[in-house]
């Protein structure tokens, strides 16, 4: 197929190869501009037809696996859900997510999040011996709705990229992990809120957040991590008052 007459758009892509580069540089590519093409389709065109050495992560191309987050014109986006036509006439600036070390080109190291996630105990905690033999825990649609939104997090890391606090203080546990803690706290089947609060009440837990709200703004799944953080601050503040007024054994 000749592509001489079709619309095209420029991609300005951040490149970084640790073996040879001291800092990231730019590389320009020119790709077809088609209505149904996303930024990810543009990158894949480059990979398959122009430059096989460009590295980026992607998998499901339907906005659910969370692999393909990048900064597109300075905004953290899932590239499988960002359409090239929305950036016409271009060029489109594509960079790795912010606030993470860059491994290579558009690939960042998210190890820090993977280490932090287990700290908030994102699993059902119970204080009884109920097993599956006893059947399901009842949970009404209203009880499900109470935590549903916080269960939609796909761990895409856009919120960490957008978070100015995480950028300044890498010990901040961060928006997605706190949203997931809140997801379990609000689950009627869970009894672990106390344990999670003990983790989050620490100074690097929720206190770092200054309510900028960028996390909620960029979330592709409308999870509202900022709301979760706010709720935790309230819980933590109440806890501090109780801790001040009551002996430890009476705090629950």
């Amino acid at each position, binding site marked *: 197929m000749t592509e001489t007459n079709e619309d095209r758009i420029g991609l300005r892509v951040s490149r970084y190869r640790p073996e040879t580069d001291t800092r990231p540089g730019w590389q320009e590519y020119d790709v077809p501009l088609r209505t149904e093409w996303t930024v990810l389709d543009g990158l894949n065109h480059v990979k398959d037809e122009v430059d096989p050495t460009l590295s980026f992560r992607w998998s499901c191309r339907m906005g659910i696996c969370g692999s393909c987050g990048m900064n597109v014109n300075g905004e953290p986006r899932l590239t499988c859900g960002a359409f090239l036509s929305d950036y016409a006439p271009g060029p489109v600036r594509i960079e790795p997510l912010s606030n993470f070390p860059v491994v290579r080109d558009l690939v960042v190291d998210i190890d820090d999040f993977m280490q932090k996630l287990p700290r908030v105990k994102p*699993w059902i905690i119970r204080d009884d011996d109920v097993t599956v033999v006893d059947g399901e825990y009842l949970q009404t649609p209203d009880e499900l709705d109470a935590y549903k939104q916080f269960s939609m997090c796909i761990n895409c890391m856009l919120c960490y990229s957008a978070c100015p606090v995480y950028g300044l203080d890498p010990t901040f546990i961060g928006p997605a992990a706190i949203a997931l803690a809140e997801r379990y706290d609000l689950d009627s089947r869970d009894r672990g809120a106390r344990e999670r609060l003990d983790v989050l009440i620490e100074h690097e837990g929720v206190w770092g957040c200054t309510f900028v709200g960028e996390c909620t703004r960029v979330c592709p799944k409308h999870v509202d991590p900022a709301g979760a953080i706010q709720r935790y601050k309230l819980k933590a503040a109440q806890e501090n008052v109780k801790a001040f007024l009551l002996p430890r054994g009476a705090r629950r």
Partner: protein
Amino acid sequence: MSDGSIAAAHDVLIVGGGGAGLRAAIAIAEVDPRLDVAVVSKVYPMRSHTVSAEGGAAGVIAEGDTLDEHAYDTVSGSDWLGDQDAIEAFVKEAPRELLQLEHWGCPWSRQEDGHIAVRAFGGMKKMRTWFAADKTGFHMLHALFQTSLKYADITRYDEGFVTRLLVDGGRVHGVVAIELATGKVHTIAAKAVVLATGGCGKVFPFTTNANINTGDGMALAYHAGAPLKDMEFVQYHPTGLPFTGILITEATRAEGGWLLNKDGYRYLQDYDLGTPTPTPQLRSMELGPRDRLSQAFVHEVEKGRTLDSPYGPVVHLDLRHLGAKVIDTRLPFVRELCLKYERIDPVTQLIPVRPVVHYMMGGVHTDIDGATPIEGLFAAGETACVSINGANRLGSNSLPECLVFGARAGRAAAEHASRAGGPPSAITKQAADEGRRIERDLLGKESATEQVAVLREQMQSAMEESAGIYRNGPSISTGGDALAELQQRMAGIGVADTSRSFNTELAAALELANMLDIAEPMLASALRREESRGAHQRTDFPDRDDERFLTHQLVHRGSDGAPRVERMPVTITRWPPGERVYGRQVT
């Protein structure tokens, strides 16, 4: 260069961190906490393709439903090629596994009184499909992954790509894996290995599958000498979005959606699938099985009753009569996907859809505990073929399959590991050979004559043209010739990217090699099966032939690399072969 020496050793190593792999890991951690378990996955576990499953997971729980009915639906859905002992175990254990997921926090959709809600699904005679709106796989995967974090002793090698199984004396002793971030090639020893790498949709050009679904586990097993089973059975899902191939869940039809041709006519009534009624009838019309619905589409194309789109013929999926409330509560992801990728709103507009490669019924041959003929090597999930799916899988059986057989394979692997010895010294030489393949033959090649993307595209079109919804002897043979040529040209592949750090071109080259390795057995099996059954439809042999072909086909890799097809009996316990009947009474 890697010298093959052992970098780490575990009791059980699980390859793949999706539904089956994580379920296996947790099963092992629970059954014997002293065992050292590791999960190596080429993506972070929560990126695994289980995440994309939408509609639900079948398990008998509703009043008036029985295990026998689930078993019969699965047997008849499989066109009698599923093993009935495996199916009976599966339907019995599925509800318990789904309850276990409930206890682990999966946000299953509920009835008003708080009990689990179930919905209808294709080919199922009763409502028995558990669901979490239309993001069932996403919620199951995250519940499994987050629960797995509770077991801090489970070692994870995230973004580790296994390229070879180390087998000596008929036993598996570990793997070779590339750490993608650094490009380092590691030898990981293990007393037992569980393959749970998912399917292989990327062998075809148009698929619902993610980029990662390249049949790695099947290729690893096949290369190591384990046979693949029933590889001719590839499922086309009837409703994918054109261009992207994104899945529009069968739950749309379970909730009452209609399939319309260009005249607005519910064409399935012309294909022995029942008569249209305003509300959905179980095992009828739009709730028929996927193989029959995808085949009906092809006939509509032949009759000129489909619509043209820039990406081939389409029909319409009509959800408009369901209303915004049902769509938003039961099918919110469908609305999101349509709005984003088609720029249409299913509340008021028709969705263009066409059949799309979705699932591999075949896979690594295992017994009912996930064991392969190689000692210590197990497989579960879409990678494996137990077989419960036979010639056609029913929608919502694959998620519980991951759980039931993931847990079974995990427990069996744990049992094996607790009595197996350490690795023989021979494996370091094998590992060093594999290191050379990666580092010298691929990364270090100076005169590459072929490119990954070019060969991959040619393989995909060869497969679509030769082994699509309908195939025949000549088309399959032509495809086989094309694959043989591509295998030759594969030797000329080189990797232009010389960096060791996150080299996705290297990964793509290895994935292409895997796909070519399993594409050949798919065609070899398809050619040998001179009948039409389930998803395998031969225009030159249009009828089912129980006398000759009520049998599995195992494909072994010969010493010359060529596939060798053998037969194996199907286990029939209580349901003798009969007619598959949808939309009417069995006569």
